[in-house]
């Protein structure tokens, strides 16, 4: 039997998702051809703002690699536009002169950005924000010019504005309404959002209508209806989109606002379907992926001849992806005569919640600041839940699991990637998954915007039950059946003071423990009793006992402290002299902005330190390692804060602190983040008048991006919040657990709750000060102690 010819116009998110669904249902039924105007494989348009920031490449947001098309036998014509459909002969024509016959045709041409018909709109430097090309144009402009104006204070406009800020531009956002995102938010949330974004450096011109884009060949400014004007080298138009339907219309397919389709996504012409932003279903045209994916699923089932009720329209939800601002809305957003609302405004934590109720049913919600209830509300509103159900769920602790329990198997959990509850449950069961991360990897759920993370986690609890909730107890090591928490509780309760005492009293199975529990217990004792505990050198790994890093041949490396990575001529000269005198094997610049002298003999270590006359860089220790800094405001043209000064202060404050695992920090003076704060345990980013503190990043074995902990104004606050975070980590993480694993385990929200609580932060800071008060510079300590020198560094020479 000859395969049916299936042609897709539009190599975008909705069209390709439909093809994926078809391939899942009937892998070999169709001979598939795809035409795409853009010269790329299908990419994640949602993530364009990341590309705009200049730190993400096309390949990072590609959804279907070139190979995918090939592996599935799909003929792809990238960079080729379909210009005409001959519906009577069932043939499409392209701009490159190709004719292709079809048995079934899917139109998924998406939308075009709406460009206001202003005088000057065709000048250079005026762009939309829709595709890769637009991003490239903006990046190019940001390298040459300073001032950008974004017309439109909606979702898209704000994302563009944030991206341009990150690119170092000054950004004015012009908006016609009197508050931002008026189609997704109510006034209260819109105003809160504005305050937050102003703190990030955006400037807003509200209730302004642009009359003209000024300039000769190139845009140089905007003129408003009220006579005002502003300078602008780059003008981004983000006022809306309109379905891309011209070609369909010219080919004789019924078009209203979009291409009109029924519940099976059929147009009025036999064998022609439309899906995505170009389609109009039940008088609705959608501009978010979740509904488009639902449409795609319905269409796939229909084309494959599966029995299916069809597409019934979608309840939308919105989540803003601008850094550090959590905004969510779904369903109705504004009160009417018939609605009642539940409102909570927490001025203290700056969170706002509004839930709308009509005839006892939930009809909409707006959340600002804390969006953790988002997925739950969306789910309840979708199924038309009673307000009582919501209120009950709010008061019961395991509410999340209840919500997922009541969902049907084909209900979507992850809207962006169209992953249903059933698919996740199957994956958990068949692949033995136990974490949200694993589910993300296996099913794509929570991979795009992240709204559904909490639902995925609830589903995990629901599916695995106690297994997941009660997780197998992790003991410290094979020498004991006790967990870290149990051991620490016993240490505190029984006042245990020495590792051997802990082992005896808690009935260790081995005589003197092992290389895992000894250093762990030594750390815990020091953490619980910072002043009283006497550090046990024999419970320390060699590096920490000798204060140098052992090499494969038994020599050591020496890294002197170099606060913030800043040095001077005199120190460099000293280092050079020492290197020569002791004939070090290699002098190397490290990844942490320090200088490493490698290949020093153990017996030479004390003399090397004495000659250097510098403090230890702790490069060998489970301790604060390095604080990398960028050039900062003092020299860099983009710098907004004194990052080097900040970094030096941080390093001076926390140097020598014992931590469960090593702690690395970075301080940068603008979002370009040259000190790589995004992959540091603590990454500080200075913005105009604000410091962002990110935590839990890691650039090592398991790459992890740091998450925003807090935004503060002063250097003193950076020190204080960092102190609180590190102390909380010290007190609660397991030995050898990096902050990345710790934060991943307990969740950033939890850490935020603790550190942002004034009372707790104060107490943590005080305990941190206590821990820091006992620090003695170790190299000097060794040099001054006869017995240490003799016990640890002297060898017996019997030649």
């Amino acid at each position: 039997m000859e395969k049916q010819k299936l042609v897709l116009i539009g190599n975008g998110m909705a069209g390709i998702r439909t093809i994926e669904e078809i391939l899942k249902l009937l892998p070999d039924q169709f001979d598939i051809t795809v035409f795409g105007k853009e010269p790329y494989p299908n990419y994640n348009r949602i993530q364009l703002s990341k590309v705009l920031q200049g730190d993400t490449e096309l390949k990072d947001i590609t959804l279907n690699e070139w190979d995918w098309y090939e592996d599935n036998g799909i003929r792809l014509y990238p960079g080729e536009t379909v210009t005409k459909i001959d519906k009577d002969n069932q043939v499409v024509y392209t701009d490159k002169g190709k004719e292709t016959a079809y048995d079934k045709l899917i139109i998924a041409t998406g939308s075009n950005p709406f460009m206001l018909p202003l005088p000057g709109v065709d000048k250079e430097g005026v762009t939309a924000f829709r595709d890769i090309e637009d991003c490239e144009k903006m990046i190019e402009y940001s390298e040459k010019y300073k001032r950008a104006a974004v017309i439109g204070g909606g979702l898209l406009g704000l994302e563009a504005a944030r991206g341009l800020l990150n690119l170092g531009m000054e950004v004015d956002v012009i908006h016609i309404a009197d508050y931002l995102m008026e189609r997704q938010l109510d006034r209260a949330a819109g105003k809160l959002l504005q305050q937050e974004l102003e703190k990030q450096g955006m400037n807003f011109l509200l209730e302004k209508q642009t009359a003209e884009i000024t300039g000769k060949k190139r845009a140089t400014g905007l003129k408003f209806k009220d006579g005002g004007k502003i300078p602008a080298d780059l003008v981004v138009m983000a006022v809306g989109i309109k379905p891309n339907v011209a070609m369909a219309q010219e080919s004789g397919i019924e078009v209203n606002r979009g291409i009109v389709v029924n519940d099976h996504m059929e147009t009025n012409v036999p064998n022609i379907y439309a899906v995505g932003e170009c389609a109009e279903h039940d008088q609705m045209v959608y501009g978010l992926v979740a509904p488009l994916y639902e449409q795609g699923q319905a269409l796939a089932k229909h084309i494959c001849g599966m029995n299916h009720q069809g597409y019934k329209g979608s309840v939308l939800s919105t989540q803003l992806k601008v850094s550090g601002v959590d905004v969510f809305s779904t369903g109705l957003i504004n009160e009417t005569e018939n609605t009642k609302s539940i409102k909570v405004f927490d001025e203290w934590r700056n969170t706002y919640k509004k839930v709308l109720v009509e005839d006892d049913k939930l009809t909409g919600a707006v959340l600002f600041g804390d969006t953790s209830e988002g997925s739950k509300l969306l789910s309840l509103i979708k199924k038309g839940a009673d307000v009582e159900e919501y209120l009950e769920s709010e008061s019961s602790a395991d509410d999340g699991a209840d919500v997922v329990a009541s969902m049907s198997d084909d209900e979507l959990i992850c809207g962006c990637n169209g992953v249903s509850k059933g698919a996740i449950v199957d994956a958990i069961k068949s692949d033995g998954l136990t974490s949200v991360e694993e589910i993300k990897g296996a099913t794509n759920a929570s991979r795009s915007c992240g709204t559904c993370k909490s639902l995925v986690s609830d589903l995990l609890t629901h599916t695995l039950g106690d297994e997941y909730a009660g997780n197998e107890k992790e003991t410290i090591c094979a020498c004991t059946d006790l967990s870290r928490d149990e051991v620490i509780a016993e240490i505190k309760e029984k006042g245990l003071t020495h590792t051997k005492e802990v082992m005896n009293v808690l009935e260790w199975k081995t005589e003197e423990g092992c290389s895992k529990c000894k250093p762990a217990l030594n750390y815990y004792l020091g953490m619980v009793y910072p002043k009283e505990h006497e550090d046990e050198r024999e419970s320390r790994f060699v590096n920490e006992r000798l204060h140098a890093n052992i090499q494969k041949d038994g020599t050591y490396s020496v890294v002197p402290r170099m606060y913030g990575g800043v040095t001077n001529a005199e120190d460099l000269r000293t280092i050079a002299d020492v290197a020569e005198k002791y004939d070090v094997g290699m002098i190397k610049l490290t990844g942490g902005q320090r200088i490493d002298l490698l290949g020093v003999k153990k017996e030479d270590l004390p003399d090397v330190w004495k000659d250097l006359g510098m403090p230890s860089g702790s490069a060998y220790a489970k301790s604060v390692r390095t604080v990398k800094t960028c050039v900062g405001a003092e020299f860099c043209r983009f710098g907004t804060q004194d990052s080097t000064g900040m970094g030096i202060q941080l390093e001076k404050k926390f140097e020598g602190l014992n931590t469960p695992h090593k702690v690395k920090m970075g301080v940068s003076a603008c979002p370009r983040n040259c000190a790589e704060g995004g992959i540091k345990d603590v990454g500080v980013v200075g913005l105009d008048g604000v410091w962002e503190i990110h935590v839990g990043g890691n650039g090592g074995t398991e790459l992890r991006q740091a998450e925003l902990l807090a935004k503060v104004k002063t250097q003193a606050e950076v020190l204080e919040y960092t102190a609180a975070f590190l102390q909380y980590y010290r007190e609660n993480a397991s030995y050898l657990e990096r902050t990345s694993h710790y934060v991943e385990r307990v969740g950033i929200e939890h850490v935020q709750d603790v550190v942002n609580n004034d009372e707790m932060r104060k107490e943590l800071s005080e305990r941190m000060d206590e821990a820091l008060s006992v620090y003695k510079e170790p190299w000097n300590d060794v040099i001054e102690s006869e017995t240490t020198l003799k016990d640890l560094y002297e060898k017996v020479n019997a030649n």
Partner: protein
Amino acid sequence: MEQTVRKVYVGNYSDLPERIGKTVVLEDKEIAVFKLTSGKLHAIENRCPHKGGVLSEGMVSGEHVFCPLHDWKINMTDGLVQAPDEGCVQTFDVVQEGEEVYVKVPENEA
């Protein structure tokens, strides 16, 4: 061929730190001497059979020492590497004369 044994002086018993290795450097090799919590003394070749790690810097637990490079666990009494790893190191007798501690090193004489 006759084997003679040389006595190498390590130090005074009370000067040796507990649970910390002492390195004794000979012409052709090094020996690691340990004083255990029990007060017993042990001497083994200062070279891990895995990749030559210096055992004198290892962490001491009971009769065992953990190699500082890759954590192999070695019994100091018989020199055997503990499972799952395999191998052994040479052990040496330690003698104490009054306060003075010596290791007995066999030497091959021509």
